[in-house]
């Protein structure tokens, strides 16, 4: 089982290779559905025996709908903390699963674009990932997975309240539809508030991606044997909402997450449409801001990207936040046409592979924060020195 996780290092997820040819302000799209079995309490109130029974039933259902032939179910008890964080860095499992206790696990499809978290906050959290602005496709895939599992499992459902979830925020559709946006020109032009408010009427939230496991989860995770210092500021992780976010001003690498709030009173299709529509509006505003920046002072854009490329090719120590900042500047240069777009595949892949657990597994050793910064700089020099 352990080996299977490590082999994933050499296999890039399908979803972040999908938009390689296109420079897009939307890095990827992601949908998460919360579901619970009708005859068990939610994990918060489950006994260990009940949690084990939930795991057994879900694995049996995965088998009966032939999902185990195209993916693997990992029990968390069989994985070490680095492997768990590795899967979390690939957005396949949530911080709620990491901090939960008792029997729990995650199913991951072979192409790493589908995952099913078992016994996090809810019995199941189904997730589909797609590269670029493909929220409709991600939802279509998730809907099919939900229907398939629903034929074998009885989900908790109430005629008026819809799908019942442990969080009052998720009840109804149980759907969180979100996109990760890269908005360097919007930040530079000081138009972040406009972008953040553009979705507020539609009950959408724009947050800035932050590193670490979040304040709420931090206390629970620090109780584990794993040293907190090694995981702090080293990973972009996800929760059931889809991403760990702070205020837009706190965003790392000028990366933002747009997601719906609430699941009652709207159908899944309405939610997906609205998130996609507002994301397109924000992306359009970003392109206009970038065009203005280029027309007013193209030298500044060239300088920013050029300096970033120089540091990427020459640095010997790189923190994770600095690496994201460099990638942001280079990606901005590509979008503005000042950097050749053939460097784009590296940027998508580097965003994922420069995270802490990825570096630890690649170097086949446990690393402290300083060693991780060295490994990250080695990785960047290797990729950018060849360009």
């Amino acid at each position, binding site marked *: 089982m352990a080996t299977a996780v490590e082999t994933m290092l050499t296999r890039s997820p399908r979803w972040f290779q999908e938009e390689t040819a296109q420079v897009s302000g939307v890095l990827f799209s992601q949908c998460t559905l919360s579901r619970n079995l009708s005859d068990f309490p939610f994990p918060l109130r489950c006994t260990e025996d009940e949690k084990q029974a939930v795991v057994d039933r879900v694995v049996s259902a995965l088998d009966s709908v032939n999902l185990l032939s195209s993916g693997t179910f990992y029990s968390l008890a069989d994985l070490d903390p680095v492997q768990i964080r590795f899967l979390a860095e690939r957005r396949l499992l949530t911080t709620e699963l990491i901090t939960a206790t008792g029997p729990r696990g995650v199913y991951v499809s072979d192409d790493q674009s589908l995952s099913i978290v078992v016994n996090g906050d809810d019995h199941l959290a189904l997730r589909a990932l797609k590269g670029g602005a493909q929220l409709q496709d991600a939802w279509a895939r998730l809907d099919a997975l939900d229907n398939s599992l629903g034929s074998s499992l009885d989900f908790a459902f109430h005629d008026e309240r819809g799908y019942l979830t*442990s969080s009052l925020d998720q009840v109804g559709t149980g759907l969180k539809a979100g996109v990760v946006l890269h908005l360097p020109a919007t930040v530079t032009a000081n138009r972040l508030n406009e972008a953040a408010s553009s979705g507020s009427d539609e009950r959408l939230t724009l947050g800035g991606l932050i590193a670490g496991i979040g304040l709420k989860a931090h206390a629970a995770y620090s109780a584990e044997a794993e040293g907190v210092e090694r995981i702090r500021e080293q990973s972009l992780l996800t929760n059931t909402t889809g991403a760990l976010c702070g205020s837009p001003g706190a965003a790392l690498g000028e990366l933002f997450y747009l997601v719906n709030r609430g699941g009652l*009173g709207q159908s899944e299709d309405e939610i997906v449409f609205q998130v996609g529509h507002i994301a397109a509006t924000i992306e359009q505003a970003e392109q206009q801001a970038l065009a203005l920046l280029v027309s007013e002072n193209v030298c500044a854009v060239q300088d920013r990207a050029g300096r970033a490329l120089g540091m990427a090719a020459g640095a010997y120590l790189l923190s994770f936040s600095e690496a994201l900042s460099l990638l942001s500047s280079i990606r901005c240069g590509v979008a503005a046409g000042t950097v050749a777009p053939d460097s784009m595949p590296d940027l998508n892949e580097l965003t994922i592979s420069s995270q802490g657990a990825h570096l630890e597994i690649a170097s086949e050793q446990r690393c402290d924060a300083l060693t991780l910064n060295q490994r990250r700089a080695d990785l960047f020099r290797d990729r950018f020195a060849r360009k």
Partner: protein
Amino acid sequence: MLCQKCHKNLASVRYAEVVDGEVTEQQLCSDCMAVYEHDATAGFELAAAAPTMRRPSAERVVRDVVRSERKCVGCGRLLNAILEEGRVGCPACYTHFAEALSVPLAERHRSLRHKGKVVQHDDTRAQLRAGLQNKRNLLRSVLRAEDYEEAARLRDEIRNLEQGLMLSESGAD
């Protein structure tokens, strides 16, 4: 509405008692409520000091007690904990606390009515699951009563039922 105790006067107070998590409610007139209040404080010396303090209305006291003590019949989660943390214990909480949860739900959502996709239940399996849930609830009570022999028997019964259910699910496909 007439008082549910004397059946003569108009009811003006909702009186609730919580015993072992079970809530029983009655609509009472002020006279019958006064009798209940007297009964509840009888035998306590501190009751004598009470008139010197400004006391909240009987209805408010009762409501506060009800709110803090109410437990879900399915999982035992306190209503107060749900309202504070925004996290529910089991599917039955949504039915048991339907009225109390409508306010936090209205704050979080566009409306209180689901408009998305609908689940299709298999009746036979739904019945089996309902039976299983009853057994699990019983097991909790038995464990609370520390009857470990009965608990072991129930656990075996639950395990057999779960295996049967899993087989029927595999067979359904």
